[in-house]
């Protein structure tokens, strides 16, 4: 099934593609681009097993982490789940340092 590019921000620092229940983010997730990711995740069914493929993300700041936490809560409250797939070593390390590795679901 072909995936759809849903948004590319004007500085082209984050591209988001959606394929069924998987959101593929490629680029940087910062204060500027985090709202794009939230828009994509907020459009997912809250009772679905949603996944975010982070293999193409090298940078996440606190705004990006907030979106992941918010989406995790949204899925939890809706009876679904949010799984983070294939974080790069840099992102995985950030999730460790911020104590989110134990809170979010890594797949």
């Amino acid at each position, binding site marked *: 099934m072909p995936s759809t590019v849903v948004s590319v921000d*004007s*500085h082209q620092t984050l591209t988001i593609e959606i394929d069924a229940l998987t959101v593929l983010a490629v680029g*940087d997730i*910062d*204060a*500027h681009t*985090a709202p794009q990711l939230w828009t994509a995740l907020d459009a997912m069914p809250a009772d679905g097993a949603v996944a975010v493929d982070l293999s193409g993300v*090298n*940078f996440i*700041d*606190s*705004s990006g*982490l*907030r979106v992941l*936490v*918010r989406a995790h*809560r949204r899925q939890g409250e809706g009876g679904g789940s949010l799984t983070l797939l294939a974080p790069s*070593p*840099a992102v995985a*390390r*950030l999730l*460790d*340092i*911020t*104590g*989110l*590795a*134990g*809170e979010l679901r890594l797949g």
Partner: protein
Amino acid sequence: MTWVLDGETIDVVVAALEQTRSSACITDAELDAPGPRILYVNQAYCTMTGRSRDQVVGSTPRLMQGPLTDRATLDRLRSDLTQGRSFAGETINYRGDGTPFVISWSIDPVRNERGVVTHFVATQEDVTQLRRAERRLEVLGAVDAAVTEVLSAVAETSDWDDDQLLRAIGQPIAEAVAAFAGTASAALRMAGPNGAVIDIEGGTDNARLTLDRVGPSPTGPLSLDGSGYLARPIADREDERLGFLAVIDPDQHRLDFIDQEGLDLVAHRVGEALGALDEYGRQRRIALTLQRDLLPVEVQCPPLEVAARYLPGAVRTVVGGDWFDTVSEDGVTVLVVGDVAGSGIEAAVTMGRLRTLTRALLLEGQPIERALTLADRICAAEFLFATVVVIRIDHQRRCGWVSSAGHPPPLLRRAGSTRALAVPPDPPLGVGSTKDRGVMRFELEAGDALLLYTDGVVERRGVPIDAGIDWLISEVDRAGQHPEEICDTVLGAVSGAGSDDMALLAVRWPTDLE
């Protein structure tokens, strides 16, 4: 091959020529002045040029020409026709009432049975509207590009002031407006910060004199039409005047041909763009003021030496929600550094609430990890999100406790060697974590220094966070003894590099303290 038309067909051909919407003109083949002489024009030609057949027939097509008619195009026309070739071109012609218009036309030689050119047949089209539409698109695109490019450049640094920003954006806009108007130059006179007048010239002329004639003040009364220029006010969406623009042509001819409606559009778009910029600056200033108002006026926690800094991020990120705080009483000092996700006024306000909240919890004497658990619950309920690190120092027992909510670890410098405290990693505030939060105890010695900081100091695109922390460690290693020196060294090293905002809080246990 010769094909002879019968009389009936000729009648139809003439009727068709008379009634088609395409303009046509037939002249003799005499190219030297006063020729060529017009033998025939159709009805469409008369409509397009605003001239009657009586005025035209027997005269020369030269009567359509004027000051804006391009000489080079006419020279090419002559050369093509002299050599028996067809011609096609575009230039400005003038109607009967003197109004210029853009004509796109082609001329073909008409030969007799011996192959001699006896006449020319020309068809013309008025492409004024088409060219105007193209130019409008071009200039509006240039205005948007100027704003986008400058704002992107500005996003990389926080050093730009409003005056520089206005000039950097105004310059390409003035040049685009001059190109749009086809005039030698265009200029903007804008109201700068603190009542300054900012003149921006695009093109070749010295525009200052013209600007003075339009209006000495960017926001005062204007003379919009004068000889040699045409001006338009520039106002933001709320109709507040920001300045004006003028297109300048000492010969006046270009001004007669200016797309006035298009110029209105340009002035309007420039107003929107610069107004947005103004609003951008205003928001940034409000957020910055708010941020500063919400941060402690001074940090003091005797007997410890202390220093703190806040540095706003780049323009695009505006002001973030970084904060620092100290609570000091009864032989206990609590140090707090936090970071509210997001930017702008909203983040600054949230930061103010969180600073008050954590301060209140800590003043109640809650153990720091317990204070963070409570703050986490409150944040989760209110959809706030922040990272924060707290250190509690017991002066008597010469030890500290540190607990972190998703925040990078504070640094400890002892005897010239710096390391990151091994803080248990617990999740940020706003996660609503049900797990117990950790706390780590550490000893303090005379001369020890602690540095708390926000992620803007150590997080760089393409650089793993551990490498950022290692970099910070090396900066603290080489910094002077006093907390002020530590802050200055670190800020000096990161200066200009960061797009995020940054907060630093450094304390030192004095060596002479018993």
